[in-house]
């Protein structure tokens, strides 16, 4: 492997730079001031103004290069201010000043080059306007790189080069994101209206542009959200044994690449465009497949445009054992078309498949369908039945909780087994992460007021992989902060994805507990709030704002007869292995080790059933302990009901709310 770093010499100083990085960055890191007009730190350099030229020596030969877009690939000597360099810059500065004599940035850069007038190059092209466009191209690149549009571009050549929109008309596709005006160094592009009348539009814009810049510059080296969207996690989850396979029995599969992002990028994302979920969004993570021909259902034979898939949709296919990209797109299209949730349908169908394979139900119950894992055609049939309101699909559409009741009552099914494998809590199907080996994630899912929904799935790495919240109290802290944080930006109508699907380059400077919160982006959200309302926020204020709503939601659950500890209890599949094959698939990595090290029992000589019983008791006990700690942190009773004193602290001790929880107080 070639070394990632190269040593070069800049003005006599030896420095180590990352291979392929641009020379100008290394020069700036040495605090050497080089004049530039067309360079912007967050936009792709193209060497237009040529003021950043330097003289480099490669294998004994000297030449001039524009340092902003010169990638360092070999050991070179660099002179940033040689006589030859100064001469070139001086002539260029005179030319710029001759054309735009009153533009402040031009005057400033010319002064750095020792030039105070451009009379030598004064001509008919000279523009005396101090806010003249200097054709630097920042706006064109910001439009394309920040928000992936091409509203602005140059037209004409040579002295006729000018900035324009297509056909010289105002383009209706422009959403007024103001990126162009933000990066314009002269003020040639002005913002004339802030339509929503925020209190501090500039503050919002500054922080929004920071995110735009991150998307343009670092996303490609992080999650690649712009290219493949959230589905990038399919490969990751498979690698970390967290991808749900066969109703959450397993965490990876040999055929995952058939629904992986590489395949979608190569075969399906032909135009690289998003679905326009939010016009002007710099992330645009919802990718689009066009020209997809459907093979089933009412639109059979038609070519359609299909969303995504998002991670959870793809992972749902894995959960059903359907490793087929074509199926996945057809499934996604029809779920969207019928208005049903891809996650709930997948989790429910995976449950049905396991029940079928276990003999709980058979073809007489499914309308003749052989619903084994991987039965892609049958899944689509169920989906169409669900939409038409006929057949077994109608039952599946009722969800796992309903199916369990029916099968126990009408078919005499084993209630305990169905409770163990039916991945639902509070009537909502689990989203698509295997949480068996992460205690915090088990509680994160199960204790969520709205049920085990996908936006509660953040503690899995912190707990299982990073081991950064080892104690019950650590987990309780995380189970306090993260659900409230999620509730908060949901309440504000702010998208979650720009919080931690791209992170600032300097995020690693924080210790793990802080880094996990992505402080730089929490600040962005707070500033959006402040810019709009004028109210300054900090972490405690945010948590209190959110806790008011969170507690109110819990009281509403209580009002409806739910909202106590029994409603926060998961199916055992969420905590550990239900079947022998599950136990044995992870015995070496997790279970035998845990029995030995944490329970203090030697697994040697015990059969799988015995070990499963020991592990189950231990894990259920652990789960209850983490719930105890989380309730305490939230100011709830041991039965999971908000304490009246907590409502007082939050200023929501309204008589009608207190009345609902009064009898639940300890």
């Amino acid at each position, binding site marked *: *492997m070639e*070394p*990632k*770093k190269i040593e070069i010499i800049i003005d006599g100083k030896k420095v180590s730079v*990352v291979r392929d990085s641009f020379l100008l960055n290394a020069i700036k890191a040495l605090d050497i001031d080089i004049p530039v007009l067309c360079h912007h730190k967050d936009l792709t350099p193209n060497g237009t103004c040529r003021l950043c030229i330097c003289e480099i020596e490669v294998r004994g030969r000297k030449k001039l290069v524009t340092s902003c877009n010169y990638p360092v690939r070999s050991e070179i000597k660099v002179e940033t201010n040689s006589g030859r360099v100064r001469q070139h810059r001086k002539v260029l500065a005179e030319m710029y000043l001759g054309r735009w004599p009153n533009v402040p940035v031009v005057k400033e850069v010319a002064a750095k080059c020792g030039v105070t007038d451009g009379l030598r190059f004064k001509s008919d092209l000279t523009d005396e306007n101090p806010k003249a466009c200097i054709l630097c191209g920042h706006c064109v690149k910001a439009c394309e790189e920040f928000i992936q549009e091409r509203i602005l571009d140059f037209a004409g050549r040579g002295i006729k080069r000018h900035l324009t929109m297509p056909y010289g008309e105002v383009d209706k596709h422009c959403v007024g994101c103001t990126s162009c005006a933000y990066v314009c160094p002269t003020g040639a592009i002005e913002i004339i209206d802030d339509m929503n009348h925020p209190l501090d539009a500039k503050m919002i814009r500054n922080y929004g542009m920071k995110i735009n810049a991150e998307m343009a510059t670092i996303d490609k*080296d*992080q*999650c*690649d959200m712009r290219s493949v969207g*959230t589905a*990038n*996690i399919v490969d*990751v989850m498979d*690698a*970390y044994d967290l991808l749900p396979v066969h109703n959450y029995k397993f965490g990876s599969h040999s055929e995952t690449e058939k629904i992986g992002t590489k395949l979608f990028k190569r075969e399906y994302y032909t135009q690289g465009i998003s679905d326009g979920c939010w016009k002007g969004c710099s992330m645009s993570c919802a990718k689009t497949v066009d020209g997809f021909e459907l093979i089933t259902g009412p639109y059979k034979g038609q070519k359609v445009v299909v969303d995504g898939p998002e*991670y959870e949709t793809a992972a749902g296919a894995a959960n059903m054992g359907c490793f087929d990209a074509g199926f996945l797109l057809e499934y996604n299209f029809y779920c969207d078309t019928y208005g049903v949730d891809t996650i709930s349908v997948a989790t429910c169908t995976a449950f049905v498949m396991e029940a079928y394979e276990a003999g709980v139900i058979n073809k007489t119950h499914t309308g003749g369908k052989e619903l084994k894992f991987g039965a892609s055609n049958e899944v689509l049939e169920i989906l169409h039945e669900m939409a038409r309101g006929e057949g077994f699909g109608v039952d599946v559409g009722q969800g796992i909780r309903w199916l369990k009741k029916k099968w126990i009552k009408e078919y005499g099914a084993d209630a305990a087994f169905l409770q163990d494998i039916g991945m639902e809590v509070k009537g909502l199907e689990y*989203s698509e992460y295997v949480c068996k080996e992460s205690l915090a994630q088990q509680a994160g899912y199960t204790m969520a007021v709205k049920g085990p929904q*996908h*936006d*509660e*799935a*953040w*503690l*899995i*790495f*912190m707990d299982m*992989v*990073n*081991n*950064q919240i*080892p104690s019950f109290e650590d987990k309780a802290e995380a189970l306090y902060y993260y659900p409230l944080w999620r509730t908060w930006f949901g309440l504000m109508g702010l998208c*979650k994805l720009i919080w*931690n*699907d791209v*992170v600032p380059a300097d*995020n*690693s*400077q924080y210790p*793990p507990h802080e*880094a*996990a919160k*992505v402080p730089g982006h929490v600040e962005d959200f707070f500033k959006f709030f402040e810019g709009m309302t004028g109210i300054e926020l900090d972490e405690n204020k945010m948590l209190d704002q959110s806790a008011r709503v969170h507690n109110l939601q819990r009281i509403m659950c209580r009002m409806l007869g739910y909202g106590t500890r029994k409603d926060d209890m998961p199916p055992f599949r969420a905590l550990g292995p239900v079947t022998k094959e599950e136990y044995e698939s992870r015995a070496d990595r997790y279970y035998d080790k845990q029995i030995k090290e944490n329970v203090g029992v030697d697994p040697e000589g015990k059969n799988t059933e015995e070990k499963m019983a020991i592990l189950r008791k231990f894990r259920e006990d652990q789960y209850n302990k983490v719930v105890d700690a989380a309730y305490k942190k939230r100011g709830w009773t041991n039965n999971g009901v908000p304490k009246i004193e907590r409502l007082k602290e939050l200023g929501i001790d309204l008589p009608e709310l207190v009345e609902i929880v009064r009898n639940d107080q300890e």
Partner: protein
Amino acid sequence: MLKINNRDKIEWNKGMTVRDVLNRMKYSYSLITVTVNGELVLKEDYDSYKVPEKADVIVFHLAHGG
């Protein structure tokens, strides 16, 4: 022996780099931060940074998605 994330143990070899540790642990995630005995190791140094014996290695995975 090396300790990873205050829990997992792997065998140490002379000349072992951060990249070797990540490969051994099968850590392929894009949003990770690595510290060795408390010192931050930059991504561009993963191939050259030599991990000393008995080092305390933290491989911090930042959650995303959902």
